[in-house]
Every structure is written in structure tokens, then in C-alpha cells.
């Protein structure tokens, strides 16, 4: 399967350790993080938007999205 780069927009609750949860999920499951930025959402400071680029085949990309969606503090995951 072809390895491709992709970018995810992840909206999370600004709770304790949320970045640790996301990065921990990637290392635990052996996914790559190529780049990552986090910004508090101006419209609602209780939340942050994480923009992350990663790489993998189609199956890996689908798994990453599904695993992220399972985290309690993750509210939305979008492929952009």
C-alpha cells in the first residue's frame, strides 16, 4: 500500500494531558507524527485545535482517525 502524507484537524477539550494522550496514542500504535501545532480556539477557550500531519497507507490513516475519535477529550477529527 502506498504511503502518503495527510493532515488532520483535531478539536480537543483543553483538559489535563490532552496533548500527551494524542502523542501517546501515536507512539503506542506506531504511527508517525510529521508535524503538529496546537492553538486555543478563539471562539471557545475550553477547546483547542490541533493540526497534525502524519503519513501512512490508507488503512493506517483510517485507523488513526478511528483511534483518535475514541479518546474522550477528542471532540472532532477531520481529514483536511
Amino acid at each position, binding site marked *: 500500500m502506498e504511503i502518503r502524507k495527510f493532515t488532520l484537524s483535531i478539536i480537543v477539550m483543553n483538559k489535563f*494531558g490532552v496533548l*500527551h*494522550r494524542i502523542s*501517546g496514542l501515536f507512539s503506542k500504535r506506531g504511527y508517525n507524527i510529521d508535524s503538529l501545532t496546537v492553538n486555543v480556539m478563539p471562539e471557545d477557550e475550553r477547546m483547542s485545535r490541533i493540526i497534525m500531519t502524519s503519513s501512512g497507507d490508507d488503512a493506517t490513516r483510517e485507523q488513526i482517525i478511528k483511534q483518535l*475519535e*475514541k*479518546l474522550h477529550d477528542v471532540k472532532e477529527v477531520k481529514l483536511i
Partner: protein
Amino acid sequence: MLDASSKNQNQHETMSGAAILIETLINHGVDEVFGFPGGAVLNIYDELYKHRGKIRHYITCHEQGAAHAADGYARATGRPGVVIATSGPGATNLVTGIATAYLDSSPVIAITGNVALPLIGKDSFQEVDIAGITMPITKHNYIVKDINELEDIICEAFQIAQSGRPGPVLIDIPKDIQIQKAAFKGGKARPLFPLPPINQSSIEEAAKLINESKKPYIYAGGGIISSRAAAELMAFADKIDAPIGSSMMGLSAVPYTSERRLGMTGMHGTYASSMLGAESDLIIGIGVRFSDRATGDKSKYQENTKILHIDIDHSEIDKNIKSYTSVIGDIKEILPRLTEMVDQRTFKKWKDVAAEYKKIGKECSRGLNEDGLHPKNIIKTVRQYANDDTVVATDVGQHQMWTAQYYEFTKPRTFLTSGGLGTMGFGMGAAIGGAVGGKKRSILFTGDGSFHMNMNELATAVMHRLPVVVIIMDNRVLGMVRQWQKLFYEEHYSNTTMDRVTDYVKVAEGFGAAGCKAETMQELETALEKAFATDGPYVIDCIIDKDERVLPMIPPNGSIDNIITN
């Protein structure tokens, strides 16, 4: 003048964090907890003392035992199991127990104390970042940093642990939060989180696939038990006339008396389950994750068959094995809808094939000493003393596989075993949790290797007068590792020949329990008579052959072509 919200607040009683915790547990129906006290949970234990008429605490010898007991309690009852431990080593001692619960989707609530907030991050005495440590092995976890959030966090933890696919949740409560006071809003249990609606077209597609199949095969797992869908599974299987192979976690969902039952699938699965799986044209995986131990070589596994995957956890779909189609949602709701939509079938030929393979399976894989104190005979004899509701726990290794192969399970939630993590030392705690949750005698099948890991919990069973019958399959070696060394490592028995001189009868007596040794079937029967009449734990040391193997066996990453039957 009071505004509405502060007036409302004043109506609530003010309580310490520790009191809020215990009251909230009680209001969630928790009347039994496991744990071990310490400096950072003294306030919680003080509240347990004050609430001792409403909530009973079972102290173990080691926090790991308490975690396994809470897990065993959850598996046996279907209700969350609660474990309490102090900060630092108390908390880290829970880790194996939490990971065990996580891998087997067991709803455990772990509560740890921590040092006071101003001391966190200072490498204080008995300080550890347990939330950081347990992030990868919990569904979710918390550090409570504001007393006003404590009650909501506890209520939410119960929701998370039980909603969708169950799993463990940890709440770390610093000591000052336990002492501080806040308004208590009643700590009532909240409804579980709703699941997304089941996609109707996915059910229609699944029904179409099933109707096209001529050799359907059901592979049923622990999800059947979590969803309480054993009856729905049987109704579905009856309508499509399919045999049922089980993952180890799903074994107790299919009664041994059922004609459809093939027994366990996978590495040490029955001959019939492996052969039928390989020859089927459609594998219907229900509440399973297609683990490597179950599938072996994945490319071979699905060479001639389509996969229909039904699960509550959408991330399981296409994780380990690519499905042809899938249905996501609660099995208990999906199966009746699917059953209604599929055609009533009868597959005479497919049934004959199943019967034939079952017959061959019985004849092959004979043990070394099948007339004497052989694991199969031990397990079948113990079964005669138990009843259908008896909870059976195991440790990990050969004895675990033999129990999975030979014990005749009838009812869901009667088999407590570490399927995913494979935790040696799980059994003693789990059997205690099973006896507490089931409020009756439980059985532990263990090996001499596993028993040495957490045998200290025998003292716990004695202390709380819990009737746990401990059957040690004593071969003086680490049998499963030895089996691999024999088959794949040129009989280099590296560090598996223990030949420990432990006297298990004296061990039992030393802890205040009773026990005896059995070298023949007759001695076993005599021992079981005593064991099942004893008010407390009873240990039976069964001497078995060290070269006895678990068969059949499909080598790791192998397929049916590589099956070893003798």
C-alpha cells in the same frame, strides 16, 4: 440577597472530597470494593470506616491482587469493579491489573490517592505520575485538581467505563482534594452515553452476504458477553444454521451442550473450529478483534472466505483483518434485526462436515497419560463438583488452555481468564473477585509457575473466608514456555525447569487455609469432597506430567496446514 444559583448551592450538603467519593460510589450501587490503604488515601479509608455498614472493603496482600479482584468482580457480575490504592508504589502496583482489564474490555474503576497538589511535580515521597503511566492502558483517566469537579468526574468515570466497549478508568485524587470541602449534589448514576444509530443499509448488506453463503461460520467473542447477547447469538445461529467457534473470551457465551458449539478457535483451538473456519465461505466475527492468537497467518485466514465483522467498537473494523463488510453497534440490538432479515436455512452437508471434524478432533490430540491424573481428567472431574453458575478463574499458561478446551461452560460470565494481556498471576485475585461478586464458591485453575506469582492472596481468601478451590496443575516446569522450547528452540529448556521444592499443602496451611496433594484420580476425588465442603479456600496440588502438551497447536503465524495434533 441570594441569587438563584447560590441558593441552589446552599441546598446541597457540604462534604469533604473523600466523603463525596464514597457517597458517590454508594449511589452508583457499589457496595464492595477492593484495595490497600496508605498515606495518600487515609482520608478515603476514614470515610470507608464511617460508611462501613454500606460499603465493604476487601483488603488484599498487594495492590495487584486488588486490581485483579476488581477486574474479576466486574467480569463475573457485569457491574464495575472498584479498586483503591495509595500513591506511588500503591498506584504502580495496579498497572498490570489495569492493563489486564484494558485488554479484555473490563469495566474497572481504579481510584488512587496522590500527594497534595503543591507537592506534585516535586518528586515528593510516594509521588508518581500514575495518570501519565496509565494513559495507554485506560479508556480515560483523570487527575482531580479542583474539588468542585470531583463529583462530576466520578460520575463520568462510571459512564465511560460502561458505555460502548467497556474498559478501565483511573481517577487520581491528590490528598488535599480529599480533605477540601465542596457541595455534594447527590452523586447519582448517569445514563450511559448513547451509541451512534446502527446503519440500516449495513445490516441489509450483511443479511445479503449471509443469504448467499453456503458454509457460514460464526466466530463469537467476549463482546457477546459484554453485550449480554448470548440468547440473541443462539437465535441467530439457529436461523442461519451455522456452527459457532469462540474466542477464549467468548467461550462461556455458548453452552457446551449446544450442538453448534465448536469450542475455542485459534492457536490452541479445537480441530473442528480450525478446519471449519478454514473451509467456510463466510466468517461472521461477532464481538471479536481477530487477534493474532486467533487468526494465525492473516493472509491464509481469509484466503477462501469473506469476513463479516460485527462490533461495538468502530476502530476494530479493518484493524487486524480486512472485512468484506461490517456492522457497527451493540450486538444485542444488531443480532435480532439481522436474524429477522436473513433466510431460514438448513445446511445438511455443512453440518455433516462439522460432525466429522468434531469426531476426528476427539480422536487426535491424545495426551500422554489420559487414564491417570491428566489435565483433561482433572478439569472434567472438578466440573462435576461445580454447578452451572460456578465462576472459574485461571492464570496463564498450559492449565489455562486446558481449562478453555475441557471445562464445560454453560453460562456467560463464568470464565475469568486473561485473554488479551496473558497475565500470569491474574487468577488468584480474579477468583477472589469472582467469589465476592458471585457470593459463592469459585474455582481457580492455576499452574505452579503462575501460582507462585500471587499466591500471597491466599491470605486474603482466608481473611475474608472466601471459598476458593485452588487446583494447581503442578508439573514443576513453566509448561507453556517449555512446550515452545521443545517445538521451536531445539529443546533448550532455558529457565523453565523450576523443580522448586515448594510444599503447597504447607503453603496453604501457613496462610491459614487447608490443602492436600493429589497424585491419582482417587486422591483428587477425595480432595474435592473436602474442598467443596470447606468454608474458605482449599488448595489441591495435582501432580502432572511435565511433558504433557497443549494440543492441537497451530504455530504462531501459521495456518491450518501447520496444525500439530500429536
